[in-house]
């Protein structure tokens, strides 16, 4: 199959700042100005935008541009590497997103103080690093000793416990299921080493309310996936794991792991955004999902994922888990490979591989039915998700 987007997308607006040798303002402000100018030229507003594409070399991350210009939620964000080689590639990414319906309005941008700030032409000469928007964002946390992912997640976790009357045992039950499944998995680091809830209670504090056994492993390893058309996959050795839907989500007022400034911080709105797209694209709903691989860098954020994805109501994940629904034979067998606590921490890519095994029927913890498997990516950050399905 050869899909095409030729002729389906167009450039509707252009905008720029003045071009100078010393802008006198931050790179982020330049990006905002250029984006706003392009939108004005197109007769659109930031609220119309649902996609951003830029260079991997760009210092102004999508979260900063979106938050400052008031774009709200984004369903598509992508970056292209290799310096100046990225330019037209950003437009290709945007065109593919628009042609496939993943986004309606995509802005491509690039902004820097390349003359008054970091000059590429100086080569490898010693020079001070410019303070980018990403680096400046850490100024709000690291001077206060809040600088690790566990600490960042602990802030959400404490508020979640407070608002929903949950306890750290509710986090521990997630770890116990992960390790139970890992115990059966010869590829898992914790193969043959299940834990009990008491083990979790006895493990040391890392960042209260997170204990050691709430935290994923650190792993050396690699994981890759090959994607072809479903038609071609049918001629290859394994049964296809058909991509029923795939979505990205960047929430309103999104920060990196520290979105503490939203009206509430007990949910993961960007995961809700992903879930709505996954169900919308596939025509499936939570009741159609047979198993899930949910991102588990830290156990506390598994609970709001279950809520955002519609498997239970807000605040009820603790009961859903305590009732055994994440176990084999439960409503939603979860992290059958052992998750990132039990198998390995490969930034979630090993979880996608497990979803493929579930659809193939080859998981070491294979549930009776796994026709539709939902997979999520990292939480606390702009994120993504998939529904993989059997070819029937």
């Amino acid at each position: 199959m050869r899909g095409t987007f030729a002729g389906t997308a167009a450039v509707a607006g252009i905008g720029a700042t003045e071009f100078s040798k010393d802008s006198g303002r931050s790179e982020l402000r330049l990006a905002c100005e250029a984006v706003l100018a392009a939108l004005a030229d197109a007769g659109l507003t930031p609220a119309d935008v649902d996609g951003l594409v830029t260079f991997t070399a760009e210092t102004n991350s999508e979260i900063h541009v979106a938050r400052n210009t008031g774009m709200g939620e984004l369903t598509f964000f992508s970056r292209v590497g290799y310096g100046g080689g990225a330019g037209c590639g950003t437009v290709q990414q945007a065109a593919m997103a628009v042609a496939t319906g993943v986004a309606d309005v995509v802005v491509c941008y690039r902004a820097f103080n390349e003359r008054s700030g970091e000059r590429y032409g100086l080569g490898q000469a010693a020079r001070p690093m410019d303070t980018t928007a990403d680096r400046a964002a850490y100024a709000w946390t690291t001077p206060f000793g809040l600088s690790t992912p566990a600490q960042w997640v602990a802030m959400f976790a404490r508020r979640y416990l407070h608002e929903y009357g949950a306890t750290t045992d509710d986090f521990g039950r997630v770890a116990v299921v992960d390790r139970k499944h890992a115990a059966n998995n010869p590829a898992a680091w914790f193969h043959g080493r299940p834990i009990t809830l008491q083990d979790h209670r006895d493990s040391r504090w890392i960042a209260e309310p997170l204990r050691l056994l709430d935290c994923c492993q650190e792993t050396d390893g690699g994981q890759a996936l090959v994607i072809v058309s479903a038609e071609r996959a049918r001629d290859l050795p394994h049964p296809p794991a058909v991509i029923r839907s795939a979505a990205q989500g960047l929430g309103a007022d999104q920060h990196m792991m520290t979105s503490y400034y939203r009206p509430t911080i007990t949910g993961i709105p960007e995961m809700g955004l992903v879930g709505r797209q996954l169900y919308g694209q596939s025509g499936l709903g939570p009741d159609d999902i047979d198993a899930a691989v949910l991102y588990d860098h830290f156990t506390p954020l598994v609970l709001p994922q279950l809520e955002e994805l519609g498997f239970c109501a807000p605040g009820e994940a603790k009961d859903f888990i305590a009732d055994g629904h994440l176990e084999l034979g439960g409503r939603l067998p979860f992290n059958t490979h052992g998750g990132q606590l039990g198998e390995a921490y490969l930034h979630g890519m090993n979880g996608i591989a497990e979803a493929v095994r579930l659809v193939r029927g080859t998981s070491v913890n294979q549930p009776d039915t796994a026709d539709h498997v939902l997979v999520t990516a990292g939480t606390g950050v702009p994120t993504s998700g998939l529904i993989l399905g059997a070819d029937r």
Partner: protein
Amino acid sequence: MSGHDERPRPGYEERLQGFTGRELRPLTRAQDPVNQPMIRHWTEAMGDTNPVYTDAAAARATGRTGVVAPASMVQAWTMRGYAATVAPPSPSAPGGFDALVALLDEGGYTSVVATDSAFTFLRELETGDHVAVRETVESVSAEKRTALGTGRFVTTLKTYTDRHGATVATQRWRTLRFRPAPAAPPDAAPAPRPRPAVNRDNAFFFEGAERRRLLIQRCTGCQTLRHPPGPCCPGCNSLEWDTVEASGEGRVYSFVVSHHPRHPAFTSPYLVAVVELAEGTRLVTNLTGVAPDDVTIGMPVVLDWLTADPDPTLPVFRPAPTEAP
């Protein structure tokens, strides 16, 4: 600074590695043969009541020809005895052991701690056996950093033999020879906190903090307050802004008690909180003057300034004083 020059001397490593395989202690015969009284003293001290060590009939009932010595006693037979430990150093030429210790001292590895000892036993010793021991160097490790200090693991092999020269046991003996880590002087300044990365968009906040003013960014287009600040208003897209000074009152919105990883600027466990200011914006900060167990979400707090680390000054919060009745 330590007075010791820690630069490697030319040839030092070669001289040290030259000890590999070298004899530290020549074959040295035990002062006494294996005998019942010493076995009895040992088993009494150890609380070992196994009769094969003291009762010949019981030993024979297990297939032995008579009483045997506890295996782990092998080292005891060859100890040099009390008199030698209190005698003045021998004026004779230093043996291999003294030479190695002198070389380690030269490298600054002046402290020692035993780390592990692994025995292999080939046969049981019976009364009348007479043990001898010889010790050779198996390896001297590269320099390692340990919690005690930087040092080298020295592994030696002690071979225990009987009067016929047959090996009865071996002992792999490892010590760490190290430079003691200097104790921090009590008045040493704590490590500085991580510095905020300051740029055009957030400099006003940290400059205000230097003057002990907690500033909140305000859009001059729509008057909305925002924190963390940014160059553009998400509500009205104005690029113009000024600041207002916060009242310094707020409530704990959430908090973390951090234990790990330890950072030299912070005394673990320490408190990090998100505080919601009376003005409505939230910020990440530290809580002071309160124990972790006494913090609750919603508790009122007031602004304080952290000066322990002179640059930068940071806003922190402490529990609000309770009103007098």
